[in-house]
């Protein structure tokens, strides 16, 4: 389990990383925390000739206050968010989510950007940042830049819309007010295992945002249509029915799991009529 030989270059800043990506080797790849790429390299499932390390790129490591939103550098680590070493646009939710990703050793290295680009359908940031309406900020060759909502950036399981030569530079999150409520619940049998079912709920009356997101469905997370989400929260629409509509192709047995996830997430978010049953949840 040793990787095929590769070259390694440390990028000093995002433009440097983009330039390297287009110039050094057609099979060059970005490496951030290496927590997903590392195993792929060791198993020789990924065989890039060149790796570009972005964890020392200053402009990918900080958080920029844009007024109504915060722009998180793609290489901010789970641990930095968990520790409150960077500001939290949600006043605590990001911290709670980060603290439950895998083990501390993984969190020390793993990055928010790496997690989103890896795009595992069950990953915690993939599901929760979709609920928060995050925007992916992307840089490409020749100074090109574009932005895309996370919900479309993640195009499929382990697939994003990143084009060759592009990197993810940041994640923009709107600042949430104190009356925003949220809940995230995932079903794992052991710490560090990817979720078998998960759901994230955001209820932000000030911003007029209500989102119910269902994750860990072997495809990018699904956002329930706003009307359905509100009807579920108001108790007018059974969760199971909303899920059947949103996920017509999922087997009924798995819908039971997703329904539990949504119910627990609603409970954690404090939605009336949904008492949380799972004591271990955060």
């Amino acid at each position, binding site marked *: 389990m040793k990787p095929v030989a590769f070259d390694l270059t440390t990028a000093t800043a995002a433009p440097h990383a983009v330039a390297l990506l287009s110039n050094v080797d057609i099979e060059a790849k970005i490496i951030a925390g290496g927590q997903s790429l590392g195993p792929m390299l060791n198993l020789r499932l990924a065989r890039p000739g060149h790796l570009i390390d972005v964890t020392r790129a200053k402009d990918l490591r900080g958080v920029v206050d844009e007024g109504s939103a915060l722009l998180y550098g793609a290489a901010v680590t789970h641990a930095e968010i968990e520790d409150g070493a960077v500001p939290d646009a949600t006043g605590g939710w990001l911290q709670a989510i980060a603290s439950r990703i895998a083990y501390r050793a993984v969190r020390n290295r793993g990055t928010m950007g790496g997690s989103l680009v890896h795009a595992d359908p069950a990953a915690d940031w993939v599901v929760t940042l979709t609920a928060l309406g995050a925007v992916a900020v992307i840089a490409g060759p020749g100074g090109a830049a574009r932005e895309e909502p996370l919900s479309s950036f993640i195009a499929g399981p382990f697939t994003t819309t990143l084009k060759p030569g592009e990197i993810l530079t940041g994640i923009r999150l709107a600042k949430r007010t104190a009356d925003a409520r949220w809940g995230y619940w995932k079903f794992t049998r052991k710490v560090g295992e990817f979720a*078998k079912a998960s759901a994230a709920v955001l209820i932000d009356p000030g911003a007029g945002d209500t989102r119910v997101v269902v994750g860990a469905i072997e495809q990018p997370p699904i956002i329930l249509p706003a009307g359905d989400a509100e009807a579920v929260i108001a108790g007018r629409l059974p969760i199971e029915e909303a899920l059947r509509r949103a996920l017509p192709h999922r087997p009924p047995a798995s819908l039971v799991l997703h329904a539990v996830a949504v119910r627990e997430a609603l409970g954690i978010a404090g939605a009336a009529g949904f008492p949380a049953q799972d004591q271990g949840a955060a």
Partner: protein
Amino acid sequence: MAAKKSEFGVGASIERLEDDRYLRGRGRFVADIQMPGMLDIAFVRSPVAHARIRSITKPETGGDGVFVAADLAGVSGIRADSGLRGFRSSIQPILAHDKVRHVGEPIAACVATSRARAEDLAELVTVEFDELPAVSEMTRARDADAPLLHEDWDENVFLETAVDTNFAASIASATVVIKRTYRTARQCMAPMEGRGVVAVWDNQAEQLVLHTSTQMPHIVRTGLSASLGLDHSRIRIVAPDVGGGFGYKGILLTEEVCAAWLAMKLRRPVRWIEDRREHLTGGANCREHHYEITGYAAADGRLLAVDCEAIVDSGAYSIYPFSACLEAAQVASILPGPYRMDGYRCRTWSVASNKPPILPYRGVARTGVCFAMEMLMDGLAHELGIEPWEIRQRNLAEPHQMPFTNITNKYFDSGDYPEALRRAVEAIDIAAIRRRQRVDEGGSGGRHRIGVGLSIFCEQGAHGTSVYHGWGIPMVPGFEQATARLTPDGGLEIRVGIQSHGQGLETTLAQIAYEELGIKPEAVRVVHGDTALTPYSTGTWGSRCIVMAGGAVAAAAAKLGDRIRHIAGHLLQAAPDSVILADGVARAGAGEIPLREIGRLWYLAPQHLPPDVDPGGLEVTQGYRTVRDTGTFSYACHAVTVSVDLALGDVKLLDYVIVEDGGVLINPMVVDGQVLGGAAQGIGTALYEEMRFDGTGQPMAATLADYHLPGAPEVPAIRILHMETPSPLSRFGQKGIGESGAIGPPAAIGNAVNDALRSLDARIWELPITPERVLAAVAEAEGKARIGEAA
């Protein structure tokens, strides 16, 4: 006379001496060994489970670093025949040549200056296969149309056994008869350190020196000697720090033979360090059992008889030294355990399959046997309408029957099983759980149900010649030896042939020596893991070390003590018998001499010694065996409360109690560590660990993301309650206790889950108890209920 009961000797919970180096990261494991010019080996392993090899082609460049079976001149495959009648023999090739019989089987060894380069080379070797249908399901291995693994056999069975003791006569008065199927999954033992080998030819000693992560250096030496055709004197095995074994390292490896041969061929140090992918894809080698078991009970709850047909999936080859049949031989002999019964019948099949060869894992067959037997007992209790603890209480051997000989002639040396049961029932508070269950079933439980489960079982340890001879394996233990040597400065060296790989024996053996000599453990060096430095031993397995090596250390130390007292008596002008050894001095009346001085006199100033001094001096090797060799029987009762999530199928452990009787505990803290570690592994067997194989014999997990081990967060705070019934057979009354923790959890947790599901009439029968299996059991019960309603 030695000083008795103190803060350092038998019974003292002192901290482990070896932990200082382990906790500071200063242990020296095989992979830490560096040698100039060392080469790394990567093996080309079979990607298919069953195939004829049509051709193996070495790459054009680098091909001189690739070695295949045809290159291994003079090396024989590994043969481990059982002495039991009807055994079918297999030969495990060092490198496969004509056929491969499981995924992961080594085909070529590729050598380069780093492991990465060796893997590059391995990718360039091409092997052409004619694939054959595979045997991947043990219950189909004996089918008429099953492909044969070993073509000279008539069926895929290493060994079939049958016992029948008074069965037909015993069931006449049965009022309750239940028949059940139980199944345990194939697992990967997972010591933190995998296997690994560094082999080098020592020109000066004219010896092959093989550093290997093993539990049995002397046995590896003997096995290697046979495979390589090399005299024992030409082989030295060194086991450095070994990061866990559990049985995974109780084997002569084909990789060891291959690395040894390469070191001699290339005259350069070579090493092979197993990686996690090799471990998971080629090392899932334990626990897979299938039981059809029937229990017969009288109306009053008395157990009349048990009838069982057990299949053990033994994998592709019989491995050295435990053979392919130890597991099934054990099943037949240990199934009745501590229960009284009038009749017993058991047939077993050790079937061959296209999977890695089976190895005994901590608990060996007991974990599966305990699961089958204890689940059956709960089934009987349910039929009889009594509490699970009641049926156990009625049928367990009573303390006044000790020593108790059960129906398979197991000799239970001592113990109070009903008392262990009583304490566990009280500690877990079954009455309170029953009250809560009634409330929950009334509707307030939401999607959760709680349940409580028990298991009670014994662990035979330190069993010797007669037992292993009866099980027919090629390695039968006899006397265990130890050497004790007083050094010129009054320190003590202990040399033992067993291996300490996490059990804390560097500490507990020193405690035993302290008991005899009064030398503080910190001044005692326990030397182990080197065939050049230690007496021959079959090694560390079968919960034998604290009894056997402990007994040997006590015997050697006692004899050394006699010699020290003799010299001290002369110098102190006192009778040797009156000399007391304590605190590093020899004392008689008001006079005392430091042991340091006695050491100096023997080695450097013999003019002061008594004229009749023992010429053997201050070094003694003594052999030891227990009063009878039938083994010490430690035992435990596990009690667990679970919560089952009916929507998710998830099982949470709410409370866990272990009442454990390991006889006299040499170091209670070390015993707790053994029990807890074992229980964590048992929880893995119960809830998480499973290597599935598809129909073609492909293992379905290659990383720990797919093969789930319990981690610290998944292990609850376990409460251990000790009983200490001395064994009449061992030196201090101690009993082997290394495996017990891993035996009880699947049965206790399985019973608890079924207790939780009882109101739904759902029942699990297969390990591990995954959400999928729980949901399937619930769905099946609901289906039956619907059919029932319709009818």
